């Protein structure tokens, strides 16, 4: 198991340094490939650590899109090559990973990363003028910072949070408690729920920030349910969410849940089964067939159900490709300039790469509608999509109501 053998005890310092250096430089040079009939797209996501599933699942989704695109002849005649790097959900690592993707691998666009590391790499995208699209980052911190080189296909929590408040209000609840994890994603969503609900005239009985990944939340639940709220908004991801809901059920605390969009997956609803029955979740208003098409492809490619944000990752790849097609060249500048155009709601509606290219060839502007929703980016690179109110029937999420963006102007 040990890297070196017994015979090498007392390894000479020079030898050690030399061998490490050779390994490093050698493989670094090997890494600098880049043939001229390929265009490189970079993906920066966490592949290790607590949220390693994010990287793994978004890679599958993006590869599905790439296969479809390459089969249709690639973008502007070049096939796509995906290079991935692990951000380890650590900012220092993400910074060097980003630079490697852009400078060493020559990526013309980056997909990712998550809210954990996005703040640290945003300025690199701006500096190097390489567009990046995050399929997962919901943090409302980003609301006014994107649009030039930083974009996202996931909705901002400032909208999602209001949507959750709206759901509670619409389903007849006057009091709610709000629980969220104390990280960028959780806090921005949770705070918006509180503000939104109060703006609608409701009362928030308790606001609790929890530490993610703990093994027992029974005391936090005790506090949240102390005043017997009938509705509790929960923002925390499926791992922590599973623990919280398991223990809530075990403690028989009553009320219904309102889960954030990262928990609105068929797999989670199925896994939690009857514990979730009757509870709500907010999610993108499913593009119906288009989503199913993607979901089928995902199941075929991975033997599992689509994870949260995979549809958003798939869409991110598609609009990058369409933006490049619209620009007529596979360059960062071309993509950055056209991303908003190809997604905005004016032009011929297309829902896949092939029809998009066709329309562009005919000289039409396009509006890409994807697997995760209408994918309409505003000038700040945010998507404003309508939401769906989902209710669990004990084995899956059923659409229970729709929420238009106009409903959320309170």
């Amino acid at each position, binding site marked *: 198991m040990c890297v070196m053998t017994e015979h090498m005890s007392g390894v000479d310092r020079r030898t050690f340094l030399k061998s490490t250096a050779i390994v490093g430089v050698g493989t670094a040079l090997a890494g600098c490939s880049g043939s001229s009939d390929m265009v490189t797209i970079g993906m920066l996501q966490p592949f290790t650590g607590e949220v390693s599933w994010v990287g793994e699942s978004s890679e599958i989704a993006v590869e599905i899109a790439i296969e479809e695109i390459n089969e249709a002849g690639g973008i502007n005649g070049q096939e796509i090559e995906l290079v991935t790097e692990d951000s380890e959900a650590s900012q220092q690592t993400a910074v060097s990973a980003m630079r490697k993707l852009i400078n060493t691998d020559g990526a013309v666009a980056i997909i990712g990363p998550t809210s954990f590391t996005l703040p640290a790499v945003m300025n690199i995208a701006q500096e190097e003028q390489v567009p990046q699209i995050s399929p997962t980052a919901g943090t409302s911190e980003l609301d006014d910072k994107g649009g030039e080189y930083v974009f996202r296909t996931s909705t901002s929590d400032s909208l999602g949070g209001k949507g959750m408040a709206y759901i509670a209000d619409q389903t007849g609840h006057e009091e709610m408690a709000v629980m969220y994890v104390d990280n960028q994603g959780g806090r921005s969503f949770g705070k918006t729920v509180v503000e939104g609900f109060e703006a609608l005239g409701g009362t928030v009985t308790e606001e609790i920030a929890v*530490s993610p990944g703990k093994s027992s939340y029974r005391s936090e639940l005790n506090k949240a349910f102390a005043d017997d709220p009938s509705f509790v908004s929960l923002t925390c991801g499926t*791992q922590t969410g599973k623990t919280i809901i398991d223990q809530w059920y075990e*403690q028989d605390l009553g009320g219904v849940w309102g889960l954030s969009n990262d928990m609105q997956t068929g797999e989670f609803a199925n896994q939690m089964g009857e514990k979730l029955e009757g509870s709500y979740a907010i999610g993108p208003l499913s593009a119906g067939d288009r989503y199913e098409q993607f979901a089928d492809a995902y199941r075929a490619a991975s033997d599992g159900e689509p994870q949260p944000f995979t549809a958003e990752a798939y869409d991110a790849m598609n609009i990058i490709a369409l933006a490049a097609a619209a620009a007529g060249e596979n360059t960062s500048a071309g993509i950055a300039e056209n991303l908003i155009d190809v997604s905005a709601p004016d032009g011929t509606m297309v829902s896949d790469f092939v029809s998009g290219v066709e329309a562009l060839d005919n000289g039409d502007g396009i509006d890409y509608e994807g697997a995760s929703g209408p994918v309409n980016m505003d000038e700040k690179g945010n998507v404003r999509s309508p939401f769906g109110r989902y209710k669990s029937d004990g084995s899956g999420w059923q659409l229970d109501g729709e929420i238009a963006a106009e409903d959320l102007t309170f």
Partner: protein
Amino acid sequence: MVAFDPQYLVNGVIVGSTIALAAVGLTMIFGILNFINFAHGEYLTVGAYAAFVANVTLGLPIPVALLVAVPITAGFAVAIDRVVYYPLRERGLGGVGLLITSVGLSIALRNTIEIIWGSKLRDYAVPSGQAMTIAGVRITALQIIIILVAVLLMVVVHLLLTRTILGISMRATSSNKALALSSGIETERIIRWTWIIGISLTVVAGVLIGLNTSIRPSMGFRLLLVMFAAVILGGIGDPYGAMLGGLSIGIAQEVSVAFVSASYKPAIAFAIMVLMLLWRPEGIRGENA
């Protein structure tokens, strides 16, 4: 929060008894080996996963799975000690060198587990019951069992330490190794048994935690500092102190939720540890063994 809600206390006792078990295991080992083993948490994780394989993959009932996991993990720990730490001790290395090695070992082990089982939460195959309400507090049958098992083991440890020759020798060796050696106690054998008992307790703690919640590759590592806090609170090498320390920290963490932001909860254990070290570094029970 007008009247104090005893539910917090009960939650604290459940969590605290599992921490206490793990801490007793750690304090025994720490007391004898005298270095801060950052890979200790991984033994807890390995034990929990060994039981998982036995229970979920092989279909054995939980008590059997536990009985299987203990020797497997103990064997694993002894093997690791032989391969990794023993050669270093032979060269006279100690303290910091071993500590840094344990940091490297912990990273390697944790990620190996992640490669094999993935990072998602896993559960043991036990029926998930609903809580009963007894005297105004909610508790499940499983949780009662957890507390009972933990208490039972602590009683066993107590009996071991006070009624058996092995136990008495362990206490002697832990408080004064040189003296123990000179009075004819075979310290190597004692050390081996300390390892085995310490690891066994840690494994049981891991399985109990898994039963109370879920298992994941980072479970041991996350608990590491809390375990050390409990050990320090109780006084290094003092099993009774560790029991008290573990319970206290568990209770303090859960009760704190009622008063401060729940997102400070993990910091509570550290705060207690820090205060303890500043006020009374020899632990609650003072110079004792």
